[in-house]
């Protein structure tokens, strides 16, 4: 076997594995336009009836969608504010306290969420916050802090601290330095942090499964119940909406970053 054949063979295997990652998720799109009332590929033509059923008031997809948007927006704002304050504080002043808090804050990235779920369900039940907006909000904020913090800290690490020194020596007050010098310079990090916090809350299911029941149902919770109760093509419709939205964002980002790089390349 020549080197070239071997290289081609390896690349064929690589693309086959990539297709294994990419193709299966696409199956929800044809299934969502099936003309049947059960989960199947379209047989005699396509139908958008299952998309229409998503907005049917009797099917309560809309309230869960609204709850998720609400929780994700509130989480993004609060988590970004708390993570930004902490990141800046820890950036200025190192020590045992900021590093311990950082370790705890990043734990949800690795510690299995099931363990946190078991603990937090008891805590929220003592505070009568189970199955409420506020209960979901505090849990989502805790779970979103790591990603928000990492995005903001990455942005801060590019900040020249001589700017802060200059502002201090010119007599700026701490609040002025924070608001007028540091924050404007880490705006991209804040935006990325808020976006990641939004997505974390929007997608969260493991812990939400334990702390919600009937009153405050998020979209993932609604989807989970629907998959375990009765699989129907409306699920394929909502899955397609989520999939297409994700793909649109990622493809746009991929195209944009390409243009950006080309524009910045040497002439």
């Amino acid at each position, binding site marked *: 076997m020549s080197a070239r054949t071997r290289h081609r063979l390896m690349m064929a295997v690589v693309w086959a594995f990539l297709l294994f990652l990419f193709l299966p998720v696409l199956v929800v799109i044809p299934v969502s336009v099936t003309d049947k009332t059960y989960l199947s590929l379209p047989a005699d033509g396509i139908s958008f009836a299952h998309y229409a059923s998503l907005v049917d008031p009797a099917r309560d997809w809309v309230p869960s969608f609204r709850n998720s948007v609400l929780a994700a927006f509130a989480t993004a704002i609060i988590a970004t504010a708390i993570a930004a*304050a902490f990141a800046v504080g820890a950036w200025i002043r190192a020590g045992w306290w900021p590093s311990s808090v950082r370790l705890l804050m990043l734990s949800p990235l690795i*510690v299995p969420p099931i*363990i946190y779920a078991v603990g937090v369900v008891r805590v929220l039940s003592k505070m009568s916050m189970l199955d409420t907006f506020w209960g979901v909000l505090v849990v989502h904020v805790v779970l979103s802090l790591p990603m928000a913090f990492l995005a903001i800290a990455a942005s801060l690490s590019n900040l020249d601290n001589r700017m802060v020194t200059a502002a201090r020596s010119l007599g700026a007050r701490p609040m002025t330095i924070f608001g007028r010098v540091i924050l404007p310079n880490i705006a991209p990090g804040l935006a990325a942090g808020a976006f990641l916090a939004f997505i974390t809350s929007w997608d969260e299911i493991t812990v939400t499964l334990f702390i919600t029941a009937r009153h405050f149902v998020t979209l993932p919770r609604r989807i989970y119940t629907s998959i375990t109760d009765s699989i129907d093509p409306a699920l394929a419709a909502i899955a397609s909406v989520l999939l297409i939205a994700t793909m649109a964002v990622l493809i746009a980002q991929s195209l944009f970053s390409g243009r950006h790089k080309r524009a910045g390349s040497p002439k």
Partner: protein
Amino acid sequence: MSSRFERFALYLTVPAGLLVILLYALPILQVLALSVTEGSGALANYERLFTSRAVARVVQTTLVVSISTTLITMVIAYVIAFGMIHMDHRQRKLALLMVSIPFWVSVLVRAFAWITILRSQGVLNSGLMSIGAITEPIQLVYNRVGVTIGMVHYMVPFAVLLLYANLTDIDRRVVQAARSLGARPMTVFLRVWLPMSVPGIAVTTIFILVFSLGFLITPALLGGGRTLMIAEYISVQISNTGRWDLATALSAALLIAVGMLLALVFRSPAMRAAFGGSSK
């Protein structure tokens, strides 16, 4: 003496500190505390983990599924990551997109897609039956096979991104040196690439294993109640039977197992180097 500015910095860290202590650390400590106070006490709770046949079966399923998931994931992910560093710019961009889309798509959408494909009236079985390859549907979901397929599909994007970052850090001049000294491609792979990616492989393997051991959603949906793993078993103990003693003891045991695996990551010098940490 701290200046006014440094005091201000300290105040900024307080909200985050209070939040993670009160609403993250305390709930987890609560799990540990309940595991020794609930039911008939610590000894009985933890003894049951070793004597109950139901727990033994769940632990065995969890280990078998998690270890096979990790091994299959690592092979697929290493091949993809290794392929990606040998692609040109355009191809790599496409490959990265094909990894990122499943990475960012909701875990529920992915589990649902696999149910659609694998169940007995699903896309795969009806396709195979219509071309006459099989006469009876094959049982591909609601068992260990289905759970493993779904979990591998969930884990591979993570592993690819971790391994790819590690492989791009490898000094390509070593590879060129080996080639110019006449090493054959297989030798270059076995004696240069593979040894140099050991730290990345080790760290990724442990992360994937940790994620697998505590995974709830995909095993619960693709296992359909028939293939029970630890996380789902804990969830059943709480929601259906109210057995907090068993649920918290199992959670504590899972936390300890995960803690020990992660200690491995942070102890070993090779792995610390892979994290870009200390020089030793």
